[in-house]
């Protein structure tokens, strides 16, 4: 169980893992996630299930702090101590007509199983993928096979359009009647995507990633305000309607342990040395 069968670098600091786990492979649906713990002293970190193949599921991880750095250092043939899942409500897959899918950073990986399931329901897919520069736009090939139309945006213009994903959204909104939107990426990106969708009066699903502990509704760490009410992202989400989310509160809550995170990462770097290969 939890053996890493394949590991591949997708972009600087971004790795893809194929991990053996029968239960997760058997029951996972698009939009769901797992909670993993690397070793006895590790945190429980939530990671989206970004695909399945044989008896393995895919995790795509970006190194942002101690735990994800450590995860990115785990090698093929190693095992992860604990993986619980699938968790969270699956995406509401259905036939909608014209669906716009917006992905940024590792959110692109989260979006892939959703895109595949929506395609299987005969939706037309309008895909916007964005990244800092060309090398950060992952899974281009997979998406180009699925998308009816696709726009790529990069901050520096090294690939596709120079701009941000909401620019791509605007272009599609002008060209087509869009029935529904999914946006997955950094919190700040999802906030702006929600504003853009609202501007055009279209419903948008976003996949929130607040700080979590158990992932089963037991602690309330993951609480977010949606439509003025407290929701637990791990059981009521992680997907919510973007225009109802209190984004500023979520952004503040994500910074809750900044000092501790910095301290933890610094100690880790002192211990492992050079991490430039990441």
């Amino acid at each position: 169980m939890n053996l890493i069968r394949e590991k591949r670098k997708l972009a600087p600091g971004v790795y893809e893992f194929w991990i053996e786990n029968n239960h997760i492979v058997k029951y996972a649906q698009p939009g769901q996630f797992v909670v993993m713990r690397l070793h006895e002293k590790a945190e429980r970190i939530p990671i989206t299930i970004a695909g399945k193949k044989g008896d393995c599921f895919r995790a795509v991880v970006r190194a942002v702090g101690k735990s994800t750095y450590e995860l990115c250092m785990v090698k093929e043939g190693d095992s992860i101590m604990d993986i619980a899942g699938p968790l969270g409500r699956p995406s509401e897959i259905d036939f909608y007509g014209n669906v716009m899918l917006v992905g940024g950073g590792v959110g692109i990986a989260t979006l892939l199983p959703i895109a595949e399931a929506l395609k299987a329901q005969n939706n037309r897919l309008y895909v916007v993928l964005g990244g800092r520069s060309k090398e950060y736009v992952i899974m281009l090939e997979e998406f180009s096979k699925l998308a009816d139309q696709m726009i790529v945006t990069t901050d520096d213009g090294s690939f596709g359009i120079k701009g941000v994903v909401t620019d791509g959204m605007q272009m599609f909104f002008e060209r087509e009647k869009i029935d529904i939107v999914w946006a997955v990426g950094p919190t700040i990106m999802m906030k702006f995507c929600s504003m853009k969708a609202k501007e055009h009066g279209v419903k948008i699903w976003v996949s929130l990633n607040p700080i979590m502990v158990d992932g089963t509704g037991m602690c309330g760490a993951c609480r977010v305000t949606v439509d003025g009410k407290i929701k637990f992202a791990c059981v009521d989400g992680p997907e919510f309607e973007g225009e109802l989310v209190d984004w500023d509160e979520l952004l503040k809550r994500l910074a809750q342990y900044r000092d501790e995170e910095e301290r933890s990462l610094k100690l880790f770097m002192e211990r492992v040395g050079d991490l430039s290969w990441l």
Partner: protein
Amino acid sequence: MAVKPFPKKTPMREQEAKERIKNFFEVPFGYSEEEAVLEAGRCLQCPAKPCVSGCPVGIDIPGFIRKIRERNFAEAAKILKLYNNLPAICGRVCPQETQCEEKCVVGRIPGSEPVAIGRLERFAADWEAEHSVQTQIEIAPAKHKKVAVVGSGPAGLTVAADLAKRGYEVHIFETLHKPGGVLVYGIPEFRLPKSIVEREVNYVKSLSVQIFLNMPVGRAIPVKDLLREYDAIFIGVGAGTPKFMGIEGTNLNGVYSANEFLTRVNLMKAYLFPEYDTPVRRGKKVIVVGGGNVAMDAARSALRLGAESVTVVYRRTEQEMPARREEYLHAVEEGIKFYWLTQPIRYVGNEKGEVVGAECISMRLGEPDESGRRRPIPIEDSRFILEADTVIEAIGTEANRFLLSQFDGLKLNKYGYIIADENTCATSMRKVFAGGDIVTGAATVIEAMGAGKRAAEWIDKFLSGEYDPWK
């Protein structure tokens, strides 16, 4: 230490308050053999055994105490294990003063304290472990029937152990990475060392119970698969969803549910950060809201994490507070402050979204409510601000919906708890039994174990064809 054999309990040595607030080690040290024998001598060996009726699992209390008096400690432990699979835990966390000890005749004598049944239970269980005596438990021949237990809290562990002893194949499924439920994630190390929980869980495993961790049932195993693959199912998922008051500022950084705070500290060992990776806020000025055991645990944990002041605000008075007396007195000794008749109405935050205080209102007590306790009523114009960088709400929990939302057809009561027969633990669905906090709402370890014991008995009757609760 001078010890008076009668009429008071033989005192138990413990860490000094000023020392213990700096560490997470267990507070009381437990009895020595001499102290235990002395205390056992206070028991009158009443033929009517009134104390037994106060114990939800019906331990032969005079029986095991007599063995301690005779210095046959191994035998005392063996008697305990006939009734209770987790004696070292119960001896530490049972609210004995309202259970077995309340019924003890010695305690009825004016000026006397009851026999310290819980401490003796703890002593015998620890003695057995320390002397590595393995109590030989008889296991019935295999019955070739499978039972699934969802949740590894005290209810689940008990039903599993008792069914295993009766020859059933038992699989426990637990969503967390450690078994024990509240015993591992809620009750702090200084009250219940996790090594003790592990020891008692290992005992349950030694009866060939299989425990599958990281298994969120309902998602990792759909309910229909459980129903297909097992001859009976026991649900013991606890009441683990925290309630929030929902007042303004609830989502400020630094406002915790007691569940989150305690899970970070206990299960994830955040008190050892950065050696362990999970952080927790080490507040300087901490407010804990509530008056139960959970509030005491949160307050005392915050103190041990280095708080300068910890204040418990409770909307009723000391008389109404549900916390165990012993825990409350420990908290007072450690320097925790109490604001009675006080309720927060708003948390105040700064521009970074961090809590900096709680606006509170004073209360007075009115007429008794349905629980029989006098209802607190806010006093107008009594608002004041308490400074705080951390607030922990310990105002109770509600039904854990994680599994129940996937369990079509299972009847729930108006609070969302499972409706199950008090005696047989049978639910509205064929071959599904339930017990513990998910049936009663937040209660006690020993009540959850009592339900587990009854469920094991009736699951056995059901599976052996002796009785069918659904006919």
